[in-house]
């Protein structure tokens, strides 16, 4: 598996897209710092970008890589290799190279700006960790979609739909539900609703750091326990981990059964 991981990783690092992705984050970081002149404000803007763009790029890239390297995969399958290690290797190769572009692309301008002397370093690290989690989750989801669909166009369609659903539509439905059932106690529902969507989950994680004063304005014991203590942070990270593990397991099962 490590060999395949290494191969995919270096293959991707050499590819143009990784550089484009890296350059994009580099530019974003520099522009944000240049325009804002303030680290903590830049972190807020960055959060908005990360929770929308990272999943999108993760899904598209994952699907694209799977379809592009299909012939190579088939060649590998002819070798005496475990199927799970082939696909996991490829998956990790994509996810890690994407994460690396993200961390380096954003990290470099912020470090040059003086991140280590700033109090925003924890917010920023949290942001990067969330970004990595989102990459891992959405690349895994993309591999799932690609494994289940032979048709490229269909695969891309589903991938974009998935992103659209989790990034926008889900929140719309969520909001409608909350407003419709406003006569009932909703704090459990709203927390569960957040847990079920990795994008919302990462958003709350960052909110815990940035908008805590507003979040504490709502009366509710469960909210208070969740947002007021480290409990929220721990639960959110646990949920994010589950969100990584489940799709990865499905990749393993799916690839084992799939007929190439």
């Amino acid at each position, binding site marked *: 598996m490590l060999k395949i991981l290494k191969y995919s990783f270096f293959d991707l690092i050499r590819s143009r897209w990784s550089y484009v992705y890296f350059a994009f984050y580099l530019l974003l970081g520099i522009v944000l710092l240049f325009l804002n002149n303030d680290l903590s404000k830049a972190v807020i803007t960055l959060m*908005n970008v990360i929770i929308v763009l990272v999943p999108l790029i993760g899904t598209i890239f994952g699907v694209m890589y799977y379809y592009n390297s299909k012939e190579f995969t088939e060649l590998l399958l002819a070798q005496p290799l475990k199927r799970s290690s082939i696909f996991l290797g490829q998956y990790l190769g994509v996810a890690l190279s994407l994460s690396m572009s993200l961390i380096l692309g954003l990290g470099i301008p912020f470090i040059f700006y003086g991140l280590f002397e700033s109090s925003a370093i924890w917010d920023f690290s949290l942001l990067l960790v969330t970004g990595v989690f989102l990459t891992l989750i959405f690349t895994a989801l993309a591999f799932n979609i690609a494994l289940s669909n032979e048709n490229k166009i269909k695969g891309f369609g589903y991938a974009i739909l998935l992103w659209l659903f989790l990034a926008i539509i889900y929140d719309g439905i969520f*909001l409608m539900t909350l*407003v419709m059932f406003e006569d009932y106690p909703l704090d459990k529902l709203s*927390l569960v609703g957040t847990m079920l969507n990795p994008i919302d989950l990462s*958003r709350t994680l960052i909110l815990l750091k940035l*908008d805590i004063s507003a979040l504490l*304005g709502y009366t509710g014991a469960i909210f208070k326990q969740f947002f007021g203590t480290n409990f929220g942070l721990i639960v959110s990270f646990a949920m994010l981990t589950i969100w990584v593990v489940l799709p990865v397991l499905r990749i393993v099962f799916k690839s084992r059964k799939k007929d190439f």
Partner: protein
Amino acid sequence: MKNLIVFFSTILMASTTMAKTIEVCNSCNISSLKTAISQAKDFDTIIVKKGTYKEYEISVNKPLVIIGKNYPVIDGELKGEIFTIISDNVTIDGLFIINVGTSYTEDFAAIRVRKSKNFIIQNVVLEKLFFGIYIEKSNHGKVYHNKIIGDAVNEYNSGNGIQLWYSNHIEIEHNYVEHVRDGIYLEFSDDCLIKNNVSAENLRYGLHFMFSNDDVYQDNTFENNGAGVAVMFSKKIKMLNNTFKENWGTASYGMLLKEINDAEIIGNTFEENTIGINIEGSNRIVYKNNDFLNNGWAIKVRGACYANSFVENNFLYNSFDISYNSKVNDNVFDRNYWSNYTGYDLDKDGVGDVPYRPVKLFSYIVNRTPETIILLRSLFIDIIDFSEKVSPVFTPDNLLDNNPLIKNNTW
């Protein structure tokens, strides 16, 4: 008023030249404050040497100056009130007063001033108290440089740090109050000056006004109090250059205004509060040159607020800038700086060319269904906020800042 002070201080000086000095210490002839006071003549000075004096219900019934050297401890042994001043022209200076009794029927205080004029209470340290300095029906006094550290846990069995009741023309400066119920409490007290105080970690309010008019409070810091600062049912109050910080909680405000008319709120800083200012039934208030930083809600308008003007303030990185619960707006917003403003300035006059709408649709939704706060900063919310901005349906459509500034207001 100044003339009055000069007049009385000359009297005080003239009389002190003739006055005696009485020393109190544990090994002296006079070893208790009570005896010292009963032996003293008017305008004498009592000097209390370092030591511990277990006394309570000390009644200061003649004009005296009581000075503590090296902070002697007056221990009330939790039995009741410690000092009661019932004479004019009393000065208390440099005492360390502890263990005030707690009662559910009487408001025991460390120092109570009753129906007296021209008192000075300064450099006093109070600990383990019920009420700290309680001034009732007394005018023209000064409360300077005191430190009040309570250990209040519940609102029902704790008292206030500095309380004024029917007392006018009092100056309260450079005091430090923490861990009591209300840090500073004014009821029916007019023309008072509250300056340079720090009021922190109190159970209820850092500063609390009730039915008190024409007061000024400035350069104070209110931090991490249960519910911030409450100004209620008062007229013509000036609130200048204060700092309101980190008042977090469901019913927590930097400042709570209720039934306040004709006030001026200028140059204050509101930082990291759940709600910066909560306004209810308050009219003709001028908000100018205030900084609102990182609050949950910078300003929450609950209704019945007319003819207020919000001019030249900075709204920086608040989760919500303004929240309204109705569609009617009679308040003016002009020349503020909004960090969320996304317009442009083509003619480069420093004023944005597109008006800014400080009330977002999402704040309306959160008012209706508070749980939706969890969707804060979601892309979907940004989209609906944008569509509401283009054509307001739920928020007041005339609530605009027509001249949003491009750069921070500085003053």
